[in-house]
């Protein structure tokens, strides 16, 4: 071991986290529950840097609401080197974890407000961390409208949760697919923008939150603006390539702003003038 010096390397060094369970939720996504050595103390919308030592590291959103602090839930899509390898890990295996990083949502902003949440595909994973606390405290927070869209019925995440939330009196859930692909489907068919015009909203007292694939943001924001929503009422949760999570590696820059540090959650008026925000 090298002698320690006056500077603390901890932000780049992972901690152990043990997989409690890992189950397949769609063809490409698995849900993981990890046990932590110390409480994470995260806010909704924050992310961790998850790693398999010797394989690699990637930013992954925290999917559970702030609650049981010694466990964390993640949804991971197999799309590259690390994520494929993670899918082969099982309960009992240990992974590395840094964080939480990013700003996340400030729940105070949502007090006594109605919220429209628009989730595209895997975007539901981070947004669940916000939905859970909002749905749990109806008297503190207002009405929640969740629009959740995905490609086909087989791609839907958290079906049981969506159903459970829909049972709550202060939560409306609209589920959509782009294409039923000849599978049974009890929701709507169309893009996530489709329901926005018909929502019954008290616009001045409503906030909107978006997370999904890069192409989605522009169109949803246009639909919300058409309903009279101001940029200050809209929150976007943005994804960029990230290597460090602490504003050093340069990959996540949106113009001059570091997505990992000032985001990934932005109030849209903060980034509306950044040409790279929605491209």
């Amino acid at each position, binding site marked *: 071991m090298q002698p320690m010096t006056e500077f*603390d390397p901890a932000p780049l060094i992972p901690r152990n986290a043990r997989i409690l369970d890992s189950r397949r939720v769609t063809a490409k996504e698995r849900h993981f529950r990890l046990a932590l050595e110390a409480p994470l103390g995260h806010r909704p919308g924050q992310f961790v840097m998850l790693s398999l030592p010797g394989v690699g590291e990637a930013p992954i959103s925290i999917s559970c609401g702030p609650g049981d602090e010694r466990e964390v839930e993640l949804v991971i899509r197999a799309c590259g080197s690390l994520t494929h390898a993670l899918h082969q890990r099982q309960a009992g295996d240990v992974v590395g974890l840094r964080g939480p990083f990013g700003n996340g949502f400030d729940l105070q902003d949502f007090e006594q407000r109605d919220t429209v949440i628009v989730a595209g595909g895997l975007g539901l994973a981070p947004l669940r961390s916000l939905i859970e606390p909002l749905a749990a405290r109806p008297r503190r927070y207002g009405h929640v409208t969740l629009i959740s869209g995905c490609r086909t019925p087989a791609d839907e995440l958290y079906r049981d949760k969506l159903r459970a939330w829909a049972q709550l009196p202060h939560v409306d859930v609209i589920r959509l697919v782009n294409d039923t692909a000849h599978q049974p489907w009890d929701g709507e068919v169309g893009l996530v923008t489709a329901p926005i015009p018909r929502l019954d909203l008290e616009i001045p007292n409503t906030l909107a939150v978006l997370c999904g*694939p890069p192409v989605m943001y522009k169109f949803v924001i246009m639909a919300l603006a058409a309903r009279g929503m101001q940029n200050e009422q809209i929150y976007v949760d943005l994804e960029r390539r990230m*290597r*460090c999570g602490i504003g050093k590696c340069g990959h996540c820059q949106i113009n001059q702003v570091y997505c990992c540090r000032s985001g990934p959650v932005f109030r849209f008026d903060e980034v509306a003038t950044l040409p790279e925000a929605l491209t």
Partner: protein
Amino acid sequence: MTSFLANEQALEDWLRRQAERHEVYWPQRMGKASYAFQRLRRRSPLRLDRLDDAPASKPFRASACVVPPGRLLAPMQELLYRFEPDDDGGYRFIPCLDPTERLIAGIRPCDLKAIHLMDAVNAEGVPDAHYLTRRAHTTLIASNCLQPCDAHCFCEAAGSLDWREGADVFLTPQADGQQLVECLTPRGEALCADAGFSPCDAPEERRQSAEAHRPQPFGRQFDAPLVKVMAAVDETWDSPVWDKHVERCFSCGTCNLVCPTCYCFDMRDDLDIEHPGCGSRSRCADGCMLPEFAEVAGGHNFRATPAARQRHRVKRKLAYLPTQFADGSFCVGCGRCGHQCTVDIDIFDIANDLAAASEAPHAADD
């Protein structure tokens, strides 16, 4: 602070003595037309060769030094930590910090300013322990420029020619072939204390009279003052200038990798073959000109074209980072990117073109 006069031989002897105790680096000939900061070893001959056209006024010529000296503080590839299995099926992570005592000699003012900027970048926000540890154990000996290093240099225009901050010792060649040795920090003082140099007075005047012989203008000059150039870069988003300068771009990232103020990195993991279950993570220099730099899973690329990437690089140097840190331009005018680019794409020309375009009254309207 103390100042001395020393001849070249005395300086060489002094550095050799330092090399007995520390790692000492200075620019040495590499290849046919370049220099590199190389470690002085016991066996290696002390060579202060110069390029044919090198001005004799510099003791440690660093012209065309492909890799900037700052890379000794933030290596192109650097171990972050090693790991080994713990008793519990998990890992023990062992940070790799490098507290080796180093002395870098022959740093030009532009590179000195770059190191100063990197100090700020790495100390800000979440401090970077790996960089800062190296930095804390490194002594900097800078060397004044009385001639532009090469045809690509524009350090005066970029505002870094007279930079001295960060150096422990600062050398200025004198007309009589001696070197003015100025100690700028206590560490520099200690280093020179028993060097056997002859003390001198009025160092300020000596330095200024040497600098008075600099050619005018010194290196390339922008067509507008630096502040205007920076403002033009800041204000320009859509412009044909971006496209004009990338027609021949290979997206090879050379301009990033040789830049003394580029510090972006990528991560790499490795497993040991010899020790099952053990391995390491390191980081290596990355660059925003490389096509995959801003590509995310699923294949979306936030800067898919060379023009978009070039714009980002130029804006980072002349607009984004200068806004975040109040030390002026992050392009220090060393000229490396233009020199090393195989197709002569030069940030100097790009910035100049942008300034010219924003001067033109109609530019902003359409």
